[in-house]
């Protein structure tokens, strides 16, 4: 499953990270080195083994379905790159 420049471009797009064309080949090389090393896992017989989903066996607790917090809009937007009237200001997405 070798990764090529096109795959890197597609994955970078999925991850929303701009990678210039000049970087794609070298990134493909880096990812192939790491993925090649990871291939070692194919040696392990995992037939019938359940995937681990939690480090300590426990059931997720449920809490009462009630409002416990709120009224913090100024705190929430305090670190926004742009905000107005307690809202985040983002680039226009609907024409």
């Amino acid at each position, binding site marked *: 499953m070798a990764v090529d420049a096109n795959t890197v471009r597609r*994955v970078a797009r999925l991850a*929303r990270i*701009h990678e210039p064309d000049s970087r794609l080949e070298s990134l493909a090389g880096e990812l192939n080195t*790491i993925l090649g090393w990871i291939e070692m896992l194919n040696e392990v017989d995992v037939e019938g083994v359940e995937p681990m989903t939690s*480090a300590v066996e*426990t059931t997720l607790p449920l809490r009462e379905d009630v409002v416990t917090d709120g009224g913090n809009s100024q705190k929430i937007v305090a*670190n926004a*790159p742009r905000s107005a009237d307690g809202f985040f200001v983002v680039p226009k997405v609907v024409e």
Partner: protein
Amino acid sequence: MTQLTELTLAAARDGLASKAFSAVELATAFNKAIEAANPSLNAYVVTTPEKALEMAAASDARLKAGNAGALEGIPLGIKDLFCTEGVRATACSNILGEFKPTYESTVTSQLWRDGAVMLGKLNMDEFAMGSSNETSRFGPVVNPWKRQDGANASLTPGGSSGGSAAAVAADLCLGATATDTGGSIRQPAAFTGTVGIKPTYGRASRFGIVAFASSLDQAGPIAKTVLDSAILLESMCGHDPKDSTSLQIPVPDFAAAVARGVKGLKIGVPKEYRVDGMPEAIEKLWSDGIAWLKDAGAEIVDVSLPHTKYALPCYYIVAPAEASSNLARFDGMRFGTRVEGETLTEVYEQSRAQGFGNEVKRRILIGTYVLSAGYYDAYYLRAQRVRTKIAEDFRLAWQKCDALLTPTAPSAAFGLGEKSDDPIQMYLNDVFTVTANLAGLPGISVPAALDSQGLPLGLQVIGRALDEETVFAVAGVLEAQSGFNAKAKSWW
């Protein structure tokens, strides 16, 4: 009298209680030490000297009134991964810009509840992704320890909690918070002659800690002694409704367990941890550790953890996959830095391209790839199955022993720049520590010897889930029997 900054946390607590010195005097001593040392060591990325004095004054008032908390007046450093209300938290990444949290992480709020005093925020690898501190936006921390070869090379304090480890080793705090996803508490502790413990997954709340890999991340302390680490861990742990994975079980008296001894305990020595090319000094330390525990009344048993060699490759699927999901929130919209562009997608792509460093981008790309359509089963699902096998290895081992003894890291501290060109060489730093994260088990690193270059080496104790007390008991014996009390000679 020894300098106040050289005291252990336990000794400082006694001194404060007996009014030998005040919390303000103690905080002042640390503020001065940090100001003098930080330009050379780069351990702190934010210092909060005024806040420290304010908190110390409040501690003095409580000490006087007789209602002191368990950590009253104790000055601590906080890893930059923890959200601290009103004090910049960046995970040492450019993408968080000048982010000032408007809330406090649960772990730090518990430390302040118990009276601790904040000295500042500690340097680390960007988003805790690294083993040498070289991925920090603020440049690497320099290890207080130097090789004795006269070349004066700058060494790494390890990572990701390199700032925490260096600050403790150089007497720039009495203890520090840290986090461990694959070894980020234990490896830096080993590289700096300090003690670091990662508790069982779920012991400490992850609320307010910038998330890296949510099924592996745990907070813990780095401290000067095993007892100090136990005192700090007790304050950091406990159930928190704000973290659904935090366990609803009481926190034991960890400090009391330190002096419990190992008489009658069975200590397992896993043969798979004997790796090719391990330095002789580490081999020797491991056998010394076995002999010390035997002397103290423990029985040594050979055990096998056959899937050990698959732990790192497994980790490098699980951790990047979870990271790629967690780090999706850094998009330039709600916090941190935004790079403006023509379209929304362009804003996302440019903000993330410029905000993240190369190692973080590499891991996000791997994580995105292994989770992408067509590869999920081959990579991510297989890794999670291998993870089950790794956890089973430990379950079988616990039928034969109560704790495991291993080296903490495959080498002593290395030079800055020595391994930064080869990611896999860097990843191998975590070969002995990462298994405990995958299985969710507690692990501690105790400094126990110096190598031929005069650099500290650590021994690791891994215990059963929720059995930190046995881990502390074994660590206490290793500390006492090794007689380790070396300190880095000040050059800063």
